[in-house]
């Protein structure tokens, strides 16, 4: 039964990583930009989620009703997406190095924005997460809220998959990702498409941060920390692939959980060993497309 606890710990971490990596994958898949600021969106969601919940509780909301507030807070932050996309538009045709530098600059700038609005100290939501109780089966116990986070990640993965595959917007989006010029020639408003995709990517990050923060803490260092792990996820899963994000997050989450259990000091080594093996044996990742 102890092994089940370890697996659940790995799956929970995978769920968190997927929420960070999903936005990164979506934006790269369509816009071909490696958006390092995805970790900052996640952190912004976490901080804003705490403020929104505290605001709602101060106005009489029962503590147990915090989940919808977090979701609304995460979605509402999507308003920053079009503004940032307008900035990135200036470097779509530049070298990848410019794109990385600009999105890294955004990471640093967001850190100061978070510091300005929420201060430098870690923010937490106290014991709200306890209001959802625990689920026990034999010796295995898991907080109900952790199960909700895992289910939310699965729902988001399934929802995006279905959205991309079965909706008209999804088909246009995939077509634009395949061939921007042809889509444009066929009348697709690529500028609008890019702004929409970037906003969706932003919302994935902000909702992710807002959802996870009751179990953790919002800190100024979290964007960089998460991006480091998110990179392992996209390298393993394949850059630009949503299925790859899911698979990569599971590999990283489970590798981390197992190494923490059996060789705690080799946590990062174990994860990046997989990254190196993938880079050598299958450079495009498990679900990525090889560049011709």
């Amino acid at each position, binding site marked *: 039964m*102890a*092994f089940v*606890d*370890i697996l*659940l*710990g*790995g799956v*929970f*971490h995978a769920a*968190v990583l997927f929420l960070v990596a999903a936005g990164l994958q979506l934006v790269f898949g369509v816009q071909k930009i490696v958006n390092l600021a995805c970790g900052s969106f996640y952190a912004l969601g976490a901080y804003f989620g705490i403020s929104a919940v505290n605001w709602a509780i101060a106005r009489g909301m029962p503590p147990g009703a915090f989940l919808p507030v977090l979701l609304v807070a995460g979605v509402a932050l999507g308003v920053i997406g079009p503004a940032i996309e307008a900035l990135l538009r200036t470097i779509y045709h530049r070298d990848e190095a410019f794109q990385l530098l600009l999105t890294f600059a955004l990471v640093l700038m967001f850190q100061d924005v978070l*510091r300005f609005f929420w*201060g*430098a*100290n*870690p923010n*937490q939501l*106290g*014991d709200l*997460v*306890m209001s959802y109780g*625990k689920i*026990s089966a034999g*010796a295995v*116990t*898991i*907080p109900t*809220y*952790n199960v909700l986070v895992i289910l939310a990640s699965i729902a988001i993965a399934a929802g995006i998959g279905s959205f991309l595959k079965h909706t008209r917007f999804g088909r246009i989006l995939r077509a634009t990702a395949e061939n921007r010029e042809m889509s444009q020639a066929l009348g697709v408003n690529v500028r609008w498409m890019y702004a929409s995709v970037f906003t969706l990517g932003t919302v994935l990050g902000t909702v992710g941060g807002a959802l996870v923060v009751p*179990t*953790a*803490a919002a*800190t*100024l*260092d*979290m964007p960089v*920390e998460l991006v480091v792990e998110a990179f392992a996820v996209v390298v393993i899963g394949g850059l630009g692939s949503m299925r790859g994000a899911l698979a990569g997050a599971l590999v990283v989450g489970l590798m*981390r*959980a197992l190494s*923490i*259990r059996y060789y*705690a*000091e080799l946590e990062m080594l174990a994860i990046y060993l997989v990254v190196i093996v993938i880079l050598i044996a299958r450079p495009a990742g498990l679900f990525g497309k090889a560049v011709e």
Partner: protein
Amino acid sequence: MNLKRRQLLQALGAAAAASYAGAPAFAQNTPLRVGIIAPKAGIAGTIGECGLRGTEYAVARINAAGGIAGRKVELIVEEETNPKDSIERLRKLVLQDKVDCVQGIVSSGVSLAMGAVAEEMKALTIFWDGTTQDGVKETMVNPRYVFKSTDNECEAVMGSLLAVKHWKGKFKTVAGINPDYSYGRNNFAAFQALLKKFGVEHTVVADQWPKVGTTDLTSHVAALKAAKPDLVFSSLLFADLPIFMRTAHGAGLMDGGTKFVFPAAGFQHTALKKSFTPEGMIFGHNTLYFDYDKGTPQQKEFVKQYYDKYKDYPNWEADRAYFAMEVYKAGVEAAYKAKNAWPGKEDVINAIEGVKVQSLGGPGHMRKDHIAEQTFYQGITTHKNNYDFPTLGTVDIMYSDQLQKPTGMDFWQWIETATIKL
């Protein structure tokens, strides 16, 4: 023309001599300038903030009572960040602001680097926290200008002693989850060494080393749960401890009879809510237990003022900061009294060596080797209080001469040979 110039020079010389002669009197009428270097951001931000509030409280009291030997105290506050930048701020305080004393510092990483620079600059410096130890080995055995706090291991030693005192014979397997730097590693090693010293046979079934600031400890908790320890020793601190506590409670790690020792819990005691922090754990509050019913009137007044002003309860960094200011005050006043004139820096340093003060948390003194001795508080948690977080049901008090090595002694050798009363 020459005569006039000579007369002018003589007049200037006389004026200069007069102003020099009046310098000590002038100095006594100006405020004493104390530079504070404390973290305002990051994981130690709340700790630095609490320390600064302790300093401000001390200075308000001192100034209301007429100052230190008649001189008011003026604070110049700088931020503690990484060692390099913090040392630059030390230089600025000493060279540009010309402070009379520097106080502060929470991180051992900073104090270790800053100690040598302060010594080189001959800057009278009193650390709140941190040490100048490399691991547990003292790098500045006989400093002249730097005064240090108690060793970081004091709380781990006391927590270990209480585990032996309360639970000897009730546990055989132990696990550790400690921050992955020298503080965490030394603490867990000290815990095991003390178990050995007191004949507690035990097996370490798990040791986890999350880096400071890890926000997801689910897998670490799962690993601890899988190892089924009778006792968990954890010197996690800052925001990491509430995350661990919440995660461990949610995963059922606290549902069985596992015992817990948290020597540094007092740093974030108000964030450890009752709903996920059970009773019966050993909690360390270091040199200030805010709710001690036999605390001094000074402590009670401070805690009340602190709550009224900040709607929070202070942790031990407030006491460390208060202690540093009281040590400086006592040193200056003793030197002033002995000299019957305003003392120089060397006089003050001589007076601080061995000085005894009453800090917020209780009595303390500064050893001749410039290491502080203070009163420490730990105990077993209870929910029987009016707060939303646990306090201590039983309070154990120890003076740090029972918890830290004497001058020049090796820490591990001290543990083996010391006569420690439980």
